[in-house]
């Protein structure tokens, strides 16, 4: 962000300069108040809660860091983290590659009906996760669901998509379906921002479509890809809606600690362990921030060395 505010050029506590500061704060204030109320206050309260222990017998006692040491050694929490990390490593690249392919294809000018493709591929993003999970859940059914019916029609036994070995892929498919269009739009917007002169130069050089894509479009897309990646990382760590709805169809596969977020939820809501749940949430948030930041650092460093 290389934006220079007008006032920054001549530091000093003169009124015109102060006036800009005041205006800046004033403009930022409404958003910040809402942010404080809806994010910071609950978060601060959660952190506060995480230092206590509330028991059915014996009431609330100060617990210090006990909830945190427990969270760090908690095998269920660890397994959930590992599961979403695996999900992240597999699903996010697939989804982003698909989104990239679609964005490049729509932007290429070589596709028929590009507007139609853009809107239909984006459409699933408009479907509530609740409805999406409901639809895919019905379709995955191996007996009377779509998978089962297609299997019967072809005379083969398709694998049970809701079984232990397929569940992660099935959830991955649901998430990909929902968000591939969204990411495509972000990348597409970035492609649209590439100055025309670059294309003209490439054309004069006699570069083909693929070379243009490789040497002009991809470098220009890097920042957008980084943003999409960061948001996908955050989304993966917070995976909740899809497994939580599908669990009705496969209760034994999707355990109460299937993802860290589900674990925190079940602790708080079924187990009334609000305090421990808050600690798990805080640790999860920290892990997410660290991973997202690390990805950003690695990308930034690579960019510098290039």
């Amino acid at each position, binding site marked *: 962000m290389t934006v220079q505010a007008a006032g920054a050029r001549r530091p000093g506590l003169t009124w015109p300069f102060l006036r800009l500061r005041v205006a800046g704060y*004033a403009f*930022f204030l409404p958003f910040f108040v809402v942010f404080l109320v809806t994010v910071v206050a*609950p978060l601060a309260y959660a952190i506060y809660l995480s230092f206590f222990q509330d028991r059915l017998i014996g009431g609330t006692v100060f617990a210090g860091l006990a909830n945190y040491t427990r969270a760090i050694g908690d095998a269920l929490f660890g397994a959930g983290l590992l599961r979403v990390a695996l999900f992240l490593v597999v699903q996010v690249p697939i989804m982003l590659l*698909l989104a990239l392919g679609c964005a490049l294809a729509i932007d*290429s000018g070589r596709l028929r009906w590009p507007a139609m493709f853009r809107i239909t591929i984006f459409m699933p993003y408009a479907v509530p996760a609740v409805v*999406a999970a409901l639809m895919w859940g019905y379709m995955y059914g191996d007996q009377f669901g779509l998978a089962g019916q297609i299997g019967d029609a072809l005379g083969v036994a398709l694998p049970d998509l809701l079984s232990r070995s397929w569940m992660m892929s099935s959830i991955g498919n649901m998430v990909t379906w929902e968000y591939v*269009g969204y990411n495509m739009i972000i990348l597409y917007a970035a492609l649209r921002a590439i100055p025309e002169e670059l294309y003209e130069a490439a054309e004069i050089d006699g570069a083909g479509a693929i070379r243009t894509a490789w040497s002009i479009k991809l470098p220009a897309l890097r920042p957008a890809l980084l943003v999409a990646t960061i948001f996908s990382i955050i989304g993966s760590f917070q995976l909740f809606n899809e497994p939580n709805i599908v669990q009705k169809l496969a209760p034994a596969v999707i355990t109460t600690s299937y993802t860290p977020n589900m674990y925190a939820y079940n602790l708080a809501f079924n187990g009334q362990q609000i305090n421990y749940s*808050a600690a798990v949430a805080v640790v999860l948030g920290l892990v*997410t921030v660290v991973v997202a930041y690390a990805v950003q650092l690695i990308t930034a460093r690579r960019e510098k060395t290039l």
Partner: protein
Amino acid sequence: MTAVAEASPAVDAHRSRSARRRRGKSPTLTVIMLVMFAYAVLPLFWLLANASKSGADLFSTFGLWFGGDFHLFANIGDTLSYQNGIFLRWFGNTVLYSVVGAGGAALLATIGGYALAKYDFPGRKALFAMVLGGISIPGTALAVPTYLLFSRIGIVDTPWAVLIPALCSPFGLYLMRVYAADAVPDSILESARIDGAGEFRIFRTIALRLLAPGFVTVLLFSLVATWNNYFLPLIVLNTPDWFPLTVGLNQWNAQANSGTSGAGDATYQLILTGSLLSIVPLIVAFLVLQRFWQSGLATGSVKQ
């Protein structure tokens, strides 16, 4: 978060894409994209086909095609009249939450993003980093603290409990900060200041107009987020009269999935039809708003 300006929908609307328009169409590419098209549309088609079936056909006919009788309109009638027409009430609630919430969120994000991009005030970077960090905290885990806080200020089980959180869009702020950096040239601000215009007037008369395409984009994304919001309303609302569609449909689903107490109504048909009805307005909004952000996103002269 440096050098991400290109990621924004901030796009210059004056460039021509003549170079690309001249290339021929590729059938191979079109066929490959048709596969993606089928992937995106198939579940929606399944929903349409099954929402058009009678209850008896639902459990006995092929999933990816229509049943014997076309029951869609009868099902819509049933859905709209079930439980004294509560579906329409939910629909109205969702519209209220989305329009007010997303409109407010887009406005706050626009003003805030503009402030971050165009004014240099101490703590600016720290505040921005804090907002981005806020996105990383799982909302589900904050649900209980949020509930307890809202309860303390007495807004649990009122529309405010859904509306206030909907006003906060860190992603929108991020987007608008990036967008404002490009879309509002410093030189215009400088000359307005030299002319003696106040900061608020500059924002209202000059900046807001330049930020309009970005505003619409943020509005669209916030609209989707609010329309599809499920978890928070589920926690903070008890009275079905205030439910949005997502929570209401899930309640019907829970009802269909449990009979341990009371008469389990056969509501599968209503859930499918309700789901279909709930996504139609958003898709329509996309198609309508598409024209707006097309002008914001893409170059005006290119009608591919």
